[in-house]
């Protein structure tokens, strides 16, 4: 069963267009959304959450059309926007106290457990937490209302390799029991190598490929060069797809 089905998502800006984006996220799976900076990953995530109003396209979440069931769907979604911190000068406790009031299935015992597991002090202000801890803090809030779908926008950007490894390991653990799914955007391909089941690749606002990881890697065999014997890695695929040629001599 798919927890998220996105199709035909289109959004135009003066200098950029997200065109006909579509993919699905299955139950208990991690979908990685990759693309270079400015490819449209964040716009895609914002469009499917109604933070940005798409011009066309449909989003089905848990089998329901999202845009007319926003309130109901969001009860089961947890979102972490990696680049955005909420209320830097408020204590974690205050944010949790407000958040819990909005969710029917808030589980206080689970919340306390996640705080302990992630070693988060609820009496610390958000600004006192490291970047990795802030992501964990938002995850703790999402997991405490038993979110079935976690949408994470660049959660590992700006983190050191140890924190990134820590988070990707955590993501794998979160989907282990098959009840949660993760949609996870990043430009750091090694993170997806470690934890993604499926991959959607966006380039210049369009989906190049969306498939199960092994099938995804095979679909880019056409990029192989004569001395490539092993399958291409995600890194190589992205670099070869995005490689630009600058005609320096012409501009001199």
């Amino acid at each position, binding site marked *: 069963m798919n927890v998220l089905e996105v199709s035909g998502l289109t959004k135009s800006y003066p200098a950029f267009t997200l065109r006909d984006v579509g993919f699905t996220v299955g139950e208990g799976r991690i979908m990685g959304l990759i693309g270079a900076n400015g490819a449209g990953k964040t716009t895609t995530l914002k469009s499917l959450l109604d933070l940005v*109003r798409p011009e066309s396209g449909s989003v089905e979440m848990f089998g329901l059309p999202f845009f007319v069931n926003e309130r109901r769907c969001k009860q089961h979604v947890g979102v972490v*926007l990696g680049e955005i911190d*909420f*209320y830097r000068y*408020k204590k974690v406790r*205050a944010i949790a106290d407000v958040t819990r009031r*909005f969710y029917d299935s808030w589980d206080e015992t689970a919340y306390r457990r996640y705080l302990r597991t992630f070693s988060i002090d609820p009496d610390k202000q958000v600004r006192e937490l490291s970047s990795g801890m802030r992501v964990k803090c938002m995850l703790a809030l999402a997991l405490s209302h038993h979110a079935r779908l976690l949408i994470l926008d660049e959660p590992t950007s700006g983190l050191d390799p140890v924190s990134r490894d820590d988070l990707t390991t955590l993501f794998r653990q979160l989907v282990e029991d098959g009840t949660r799914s993760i949609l996870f955007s990043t430009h750091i391909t090694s993170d997806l190598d470690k934890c993604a089941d499926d991959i959607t690749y966006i380039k210049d606002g369009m989906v190049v490929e969306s498939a199960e990881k092994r099938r995804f890697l095979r679909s880019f065999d056409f990029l192989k060069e004569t001395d490539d014997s092993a399958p291409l890695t995600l890194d190589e695929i992205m670099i070869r797809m995005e490689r630009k040629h600058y005609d320096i001599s012409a501009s001199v």
Partner: protein
Amino acid sequence: MIYRLLYKEFRLAAHPNLYVFMCFGALVMIPAYPYGVVFLFGCLGPYITFLYGRETNDIFYSVLLPVDKRDVVKGKCLLVATSQLAQLILSLPFAFLRTVMLPEGNIVGIEANVAYYGFGLMVYAVFDLVFLTSFFKTAYKVGRAFVLGMVPALLMIIAMETAVHFPSLAWLDGLEASDLFRQLPILAFGAASFALCLLLACKVSAERFECVDL
């Protein structure tokens, strides 16, 4: 839902200044002072809170909660209206006290009487309508929204403070029972315009905010 949104606004979104300015109704205890200034603080409080909200990414947090996008607007409208009404209500005991302790009246401008509260509600009605609808066009241009809202609000305050100096309008400045009775329609009109403008501001702002790309 509305209660929860309002709780969220006061607990997380409100800047401490909003609470301070809510207490500024006590300025009506100053013997000679343009009491219209109290309304300026009632407009300044929401402005600073909205600026603070931009700094703390309050709108993003709110939109990601299990609420409709337009509910976020309702929460903000309620926050503004509640803070302004609370300010006026908190000033009432002081307005009463000054009539007992300072019976010589306010020589600078209008007395803190029934008409004063009616004008205050009208000032807030106009400010809120312009400020909120302008802000929710973008959900980040707070300064522009504040300037646009303050222009009519200031003109109304100046008009109120000036009017009481005309002998024919001296009843607006009165504290006698007959004057207060005569001022009641101003209060009623103020209350009605405040409620109507708030509803209109909420409706228009919600429609605008639904089209905003965050």
